[in-house]
Every structure is written in structure tokens, then in C-alpha cells.
């Protein structure tokens, strides 16, 4: 929107979006093709086109394991990045994200309750809807605590610490619970809590997309009020924005997005923090109309890349996803903190 080089800006945006989409597609192909059994791009297209027998092992690997996983990482990353972007706008602060604010930990606690409690008390399996409900409840709980605290304390550092502490309490409760859990369910929970896009079933992928896409679309519809909110509540209000309504919508959308990813893939850190920032810097704008779609695509790309790294870097051993996102994300947080002297 900068007036003089306007055309150049528009071309830049198109160019950057093309790069993001291209990257997303590339990482999807890599995730589907590369692994313990490598499958060529030509084969992938043939399989997708239905020209390969359904009993072929490559078909099974791709359809049962790799495509759901690649799709899940794309949607999960998008959800986390958009949730991070919304929270950063909500708190007018660049270093918040679901994981930092303890929202993921809240989700973990309730997912733990559902997973450990459910199986311990005799349920044979846990329905995905139930998992999601637990994760959502946990996310909202921590979110509400942080928001109530935000009314009292103005310092963002204090607020972050409150979020982190809420997260620790949730983690403590979770670990107490694991002490009583049965071995079988415990292993499942431990795997989950390290974060991974592995083991997604098609029905889980369906649910993930059914929740993530409408939520990101809703967030995109809020782009104009979000832009006004960049000037602060009072200015936004004076320009005719219903700030309360927008804030409620922000809480709801970011909690749902965080919860749905946490329910199925476990707590995944730093994607929600790093991606919005990389997008801001790359696009050189604070305009939500650009940044929400950019963060969604970029989040999918980054999650896909991290998942690819986790699977292949130490192959055949698969690393926990959380380790990869942290290694990439943590230095970025430090960099941002040091660059921003006015926190």
C-alpha cells in the first residue's frame, strides 16, 4: 500500500506467495516420496492417478502412511502459525504463541486425562472428537487465566511468566497423572507428548481439515478489524471497530486452532512464533490481509519441513518433532528479544 512503489509491492506479494505455494508443494512431494522406501515423483503421480494396484506396497505406504501424515503436517502447521499470528495481534506482542503462553500445556493436560484416564478406566480406544474436546477445554482454560491476568498486569513479561507458570502447573498435573497411569497407555501418551504428525488416520485428517480451514477462513474475515487493532484498542474503537467482539473471536479461533493440532499431533512449539515473524519480514508489512494467508501457507511449509527433517535426518531413527521445531525456533526467539529493546 506504500504509495509510490505500489505496483512493485503487488508484484512482490504475488512472487512471494508463489514461492510459498511452490515450497509447500515441493515439501509435500518430498514427504510423500522420501523415507525408508523411496518413491519417485513419477510413481507418486501414477499412484495418485490410480494406475497402480491397491495391493502394491508403495500404494499402501503412500496412502496409509505418508499422504495422511503430509496432509496433517501442512494443516497443523497452518493452524499453529495462524493461531500464533492472532495471539501476537491480541497481545500486541511479537513473542507470544500458543506454546509460550502455556495454552498447549493446558491442552496436553486434558488430552492426558482423556488418553490416560480413558484407557485406565477401561475404554478400549479414544474417539478423535473426544480428544479434541479435551484439548479445546484445556486450551480455553489456560487462555482464560492468561486473559484475566492480562487485565490486571500490563507488563508483557509478567504476562508471559504467568502463562508459563500456568503451563508448568498443567505439566506438573500431567506428570502426576502419568505416575498413576498404566504402562500401555503411558507409552502412547509419551509418544504423543513429544509431538509428531505420525500415525494420522484418514478420519483424523478429515476432522483436522474440517476444523482448521473454516477457522483460518474466519480469521481472514477478521483482517480489517485486526489491522485496526494494531493501533491499540482505543483507536480501533474510535474508528468504529467492535473491539470486544473481535477479541472474543480471536480467543475462540486461536484456542480452537491450537486445540485441534495439540489433540492429534501433541504440543508443537515455535511454529506459531517463528512463521508469522518470517512472513512479516519477508512481506515487509503488518497487513493482516496479507499475513494471514501467508502465515497459513508458511506454517504448512515449515511444519512439513520440520517433519521431513525429523523423519530423515537420523533415519531410520525418527526424531521427536518438538526437538526440530525448537532447534529452529529458539534461536529466533532470542534474536527477536535482543532486537526489540522496548519489551
Amino acid at each position, binding site marked *: 500500500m506504500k504509495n509510490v512503489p505500489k505496483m512493485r509491492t503487488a508484484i512482490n506479494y504475488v512472487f512471494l506467495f508463489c514461492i510459498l505455494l511452490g515450497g509447500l508443494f515441493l515439501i509435500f512431494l518430498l514427504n510423500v516420496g522420501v523415507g525408508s522406501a523411496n518413491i519417485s515423483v513419477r510413481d507418486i503421480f501414477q499412484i495418485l492417478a490410480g494406475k497402480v494396484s491397491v495391493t502394491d506396497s508403495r500404494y499402501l505406504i503412500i496412502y496409509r502412511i505418508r499422504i495422511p501424515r503430509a496432509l496433517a503436517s501442512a494443516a497443523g502447521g497452518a493452524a499453529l502459525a495462524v493461531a500464533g499470528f492472532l495471539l501476537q495481534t491480541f497481545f500486541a506482542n511479537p513473542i507470544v504463541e500458543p506454546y509460550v503462553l502455556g495454552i498447549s500445556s493446558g491442552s496436553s493436560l486434558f488430552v492426558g486425562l482423556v488418553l490416560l484416564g480413558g484407557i485406565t478406566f477401561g475404554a478400549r480406544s479414544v474417539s478423535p472428537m473426544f480428544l479434541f474436546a479435551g484439548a479445546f477445554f484445556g486450551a480455553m482454560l489456560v487462555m482464560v487465566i492468561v486473559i484475566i491476568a492480562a487485565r490486571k498486569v500490563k507488563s508483557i513479561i509478567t504476562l508471559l511468566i504467568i502463562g508459563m507458570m500456568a503451563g508448568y502447573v498443567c505439566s506438573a498435573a500431567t506428570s502426576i497423572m502419568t505416575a498413576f497411569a498404566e504402562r500401555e497407555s503411558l507409552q502412547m501418551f509419551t509418544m504423543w507428548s513429544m509431538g509428531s504428525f505420525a500415525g494420522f488416520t484418514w478420519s483424523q485428517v478429515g476432522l483436522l481439515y474440517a476444523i482448521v480451514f473454516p477457522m483460518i477462513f474466519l480469521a481472514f474475515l477478521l483482517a*480489517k478489524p485486526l*489491522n485496526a487493532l494494531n*493501533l491499540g484498542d482505543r483507536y480501533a474503537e474510535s474508528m*468504529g471497530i467492535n473491539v470486544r467482539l473481535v477479541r472474543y473471536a480471536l480467543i475462540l479461533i486461536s484456542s480452537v486452532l491450537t486445540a485441534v493440532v495439540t489433540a492429534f499431533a501433541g504440543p508443537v512449539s515455535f511454529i506459531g512464533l517463528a512463521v508469522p515473524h518470517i512472513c512479516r519480514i519477508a512481506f515487509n508489512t503488518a497487513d493482516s*490481509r496479507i499475513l494471514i494467508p501467508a502465515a497459513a501457507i508458511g506454517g504448512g511449509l515449515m511444519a512439513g519441513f520440520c517433519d521431513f527433517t525429523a523423519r530423515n535426518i537420523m533415519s531410520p531413527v525418527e526424531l521427536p518433532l518438538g526437538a526440530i521445531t525448537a532447534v529452529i525456533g529458539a534461536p529466533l526467539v532470542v534474536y527477536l528479544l535482543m532486537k526489540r529493546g522496548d519489551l
Partner: protein
Amino acid sequence: MNDLGYILSTDHLDVGYESRTVIRNVDIQALKGQTICLLGPNGAGKSTILRTLTGMLSPVNGCVYIEKNDVRRMKSADRAKKLAVVLTEKLNLNMTSAYEVAAMGRTPYTGFFGRLTDEDKEIIEECLRTVGAWELRDRDYRSLSDGEKQKVMIARALAQRPELIVLDEPTSHLDIKHKIEVVRILNKLAIETGLTVILALHDIDIAVKFCQIVLLVKDGKIVAQGRPEDIVRRDTVDELYGIEEGAFYDSILGSVEICNEANPEIFVMAGAGCGIPVYRLVSRLGFGIATGILAQNDIDYVVASAMKLTAVSTRSFQPIREEEIRQAQQCMERCRFVIDTGFPVGQENRENAKLLRQAVGRGKRIFSLRDPKDSAEICGQNANIVHVSSMAELSGRLQGELA
């Protein structure tokens, strides 16, 4: 409610937070093109009044009307087209150009996604040009100076095409250039476009010179209200700011002078404004001052009395009398030094020249800012006078005497 065409009016308004009343009976009726200023010390409740007027805060009692509508009941989008605000809070904006900030002012008019039409763009350009910030449009907002930021924020408010603009302390933290610029912009808008301006200030001099109506706010009350000429007087201002000692407000000049009531050690011969810089300089060095002989219509007298100096004076447009000469002689006699400010000598103050010659005759130590040639004409060739060519030199000489 109001048939007189008030843009903003109040009805039995008490303002405060929740049920705690801060200020009772706020009575503001703002006409088109009026500039109304709330003046008062920090913490007097000016911001509380402004926040209530803009509908951000609900009144404890009573009502605020924008034209004929209750400001709290208006749809916020409708209100945004009538009323724009400029607040004191600092913006935390990243990666946003000055143009984009100003463009935010179109928010109440743009469609669902906030896309700017050609008309919007014309209005934004016009508003940025009005405040003289069009050249800043591509700069990152964060890189602007405080004064430039303020101009951009005013452009943003104007882009809302309001009939009323409310500003909270728009000139604080600004340097003098930007202070004046901001006030001039607002004044011009009020006169040329009929924009009504309501603002809080704590610069008395700016308020008095720029606003049509002033409300003095202190300790939860509006202590006076009306045209600045009527209500901004020495006593009201000194009371308003609780200035009891050390400084004095002068209503003719609209400025605050620092008092100097120390025992006079230096006699300053002044007139026609030559004395003012010397008074200030000598006061800063810590000397007490006596001055004279000044006509009461002399600008030097106005400042000397605001500073509470010992001043020998004569009534306006009257020749100097014997009695006043004697007074001046006595004053001069008690002082250690005499300073000749180089005041013009004419028909009415010839006596001052005579007084200067007497000082020479009595062997007083005299510092003179006058040209030595002119000095010789008044006091003769061999007079014992120390001529200084600048205020800096005078300051140095006096400090030398002190040591």
C-alpha cells in the same frame, strides 16, 4: 435537546470511573468551528472528561450528545464518522508506513476487507498534505520523530472526515517547532473547514493564544470557563497550577516568569524591552535586582513586575516626577553595581540619562551594553564605564565580580 446546532453538548454531566465521580457538572456546548481547551495541571481529570466526551467512558451521571444523539448509544461506525480522536498513548507499530497509518482513518468507510477506493486515496493524500506529512508517507512510522508521528496521527483522524476532533495533550513531548505547527494546523482547520476542536493542554501560553473557549480544571472541579481573555488571569492561573512561590503568570504576555525577590544588588537601567533579557540573565546568576525608571506601559515594567523585581515606575504616558527620581537615586545608592541596558533615550525618559550620569559621578561600578560612542555622548568621554558587547560577556563580568 439542542436546537442551536451544537456539534457536541453535555447535559448534567458528571464524569468519573464506575461510580466514583471525578468531576461534577461538566458543561460543554461546542459549536461548529470552535476550539475548546481544557487547561489544568496533570491529574486534574482532563483525560477523564475527554474520554467521556468521546464515549469511551460512560458518564457517572448525565449525557453527552453528538449533534442530537447520545454518544454512548450511537453505533460505533456512525460515531467514527462524526468524531475522531488523537490520544496520548504511544503506538507499537511494526512494518507500517506513515501512509498506512493515515489510511487507517478510512476504516469507518471502507468495505468488509478495508480495500481503499480511489476516493479514499484522494482523501488520505489531502489529509496528509493538510498536516504537511505527505513527504513522510513512505517512511516507517516507527522511524518518525514525535512531532512527525503526531502529525500523521492527526492526518489519520482527519481521514475519518469528522466534524469534531478530540485531542488529549497533542503538544506534549513535542519540540517548539512542532508544537506551533500542530496548533496552527488545528486552528486552520477550525477556521477554514469548520472542524470543531476539543483538546486538553497544559501549555497555558498556547491555550490562551489559540483557543476560543478555555475550561480551567482543578481538583475535580471546573473552576472557570469562558473566553481566555476573561478567565485566564494571573490569580486564576497561579491558583490553577498551585503556583504559590517562585514563579508568576503574566496575563498580558501569556507566559510564566520566574520570581526574583532577592535583596537588590544590581540596579538595571532599562526601557523599551532592553531590560527583559538582562533581568533574566542577572536573576539566573542569583543577584537581586532593582530597576527603573520605567513607565508602567513599558514592556520592561510588565516583566519586571511579573518577576516581582523592585521597580521604580511612573504612570503611563506621564513625565517622570521628582519623587520617582529620588526613589531611583535611593535604590541605586543601595546597589553594588549599575547595568545600563542601552535603552533608547528620548523626551520622556531624559531623567534616566541624568540618573546614569549621576551614577558615574558617584563612582558606581557600571556595566554598559550601550555602544561606547553613544555612551560617551550621554556620560562624557572619560566616564568610568565597563562596556560589554554581549550578554555572554556581561554574564562573565558579573560572575567575575562574584568571585
